[in-house]
């Protein structure tokens, strides 16, 4: 099997270094408030990283293109799954006609009513007031 492509050591090291660098970049960027652009940027960087892993570490760049096709196919079906599901979940109560059908489940689950307030260690604190009871949705 000696005819298989052997990636030079240097390539591996460069790729690993870029991956680490990009990880640093995402963390750094996440502290800057860019509004909804944050998530776009984070996903963009993640995708660059993922491609580096796939093409170099997983050797897709040099492999039979069938293997790449398989991989891309998995992403395509994932895309289909998300997009079409979102056509529903993102547009419930569309047509704007029946407001009651929209925004349905933003109701706190009932078991929260029985939970005591806690401190940051999760220990219950005294319920000296009923404050937190008020901000719950009673139906």
């Amino acid at each position: 099997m000696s005819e298989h492509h052997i990636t030079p050591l240097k390539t591996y090291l460069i790729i690993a270094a870029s991956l680490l660098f990009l990880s640093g970049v995402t963390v750094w960027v996440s502290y800057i408030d860019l509004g909804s652009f944050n998530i776009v940027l984070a996903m963009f960087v993640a995708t660059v990283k993922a491609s580096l892993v796939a093409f170099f570490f997983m050797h897709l760049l040099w492999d039979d293109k069938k293997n790449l096709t398989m991989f891309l196919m998995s992403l395509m079906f994932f895309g289909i799954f998300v997009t079409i599901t979102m056509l529903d979940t993102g547009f419930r109560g569309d047509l704007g006609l029946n407001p009651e059908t929209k925004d349905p489940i933003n109701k706190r689950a009932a078991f929260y009513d029985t939970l005591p307030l806690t401190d940051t260690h999760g220990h219950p604190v005294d319920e000296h007031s009923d404050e937190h009871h008020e901000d719950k949705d009673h139906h």
Partner: protein
Amino acid sequence: MLDRLTEFFFPKQVSTFASDIDNLYFFIFYSSVALFVIVVFGMIYLSIKYRHRKGEELKLTSSKDHSNLLESMFFIIPLILVSITFVWGIRSYLKMVIVPDDAIEIKVTGQSWFWTFDYPDGGTTLNELVVPSNKPVKLVLSSKDVLHSFFIPVMRSKMDCLPNRYNVMWFDATKEGVYDIFCTEYCGTGHSQMGAKVIVMQPAQYEEWASELGSEDDDLPLDELGAKLYTKKACNTCHTLDGSALVGPSYLQTSQMWGQERVFDDGTSTVIDDNYIRSSILEPMTQIVAGYQGVMPTYQGLLSDRELDALIAFLKTLNEDSQI
């Protein structure tokens, strides 16, 4: 002719969009029949015409395996049919989802295994939806426990009822009468008994009915009112009066039961009295009779005190002779 066919295939058309849907059905039906006839005729004709006759030598057969004309037909004809169906279907569909502004709004709640209807001017009915004719009615549906689906065949309409969410359907009934309602989403043991009726009345009659809603029973004696409530509040979907057990215990002999012991599934027991019955109806999950499952819904908020008394009074009258 078409009317007769419609009657053959479908229940009565009672909503304004029913005929539209039936027509869509017939369009697809006739196209399908045509395609089906082509398929079956082609298949029988070709297989018989080119059958291998007795004694005939095996031979090299034709190499014909395509024809541009035919193949484009395979695409074009279905594409045309499908396009018409799509446009038609969507137009009918939009009629079904866009609710007219002047619709009266009734709240429908599914619960295992009965329906509650709340009317705009107050008042509630169980398992009986009363609506005026020739006036759009908007139903806002939800459920108290699992999924149910509210299906009125004569209106050609159906919608699921989800807990914690509202769905909407509407219709405009064109003919007075009493029609079936079915639950069409599986919801447990009583699913197939979760039927109800829709009563379509003249608008004037409806107004009268609505204004009397809730007050009509005021002057009935308690046990008669209880007997009425027994079916009206859907107790009979789970409790029979003839001794056979459905989902819940039967009430054939309740009059004799008073003062006797009731054993629960956790081993505890209590003596049957008015209070026990009252709490069984309001908080059925706290004490579950041994041998049964805790599936009885709570009637908290659905029964007034007088109605509770009435039900208890009614149960007390029951004995072997009072079989209904």
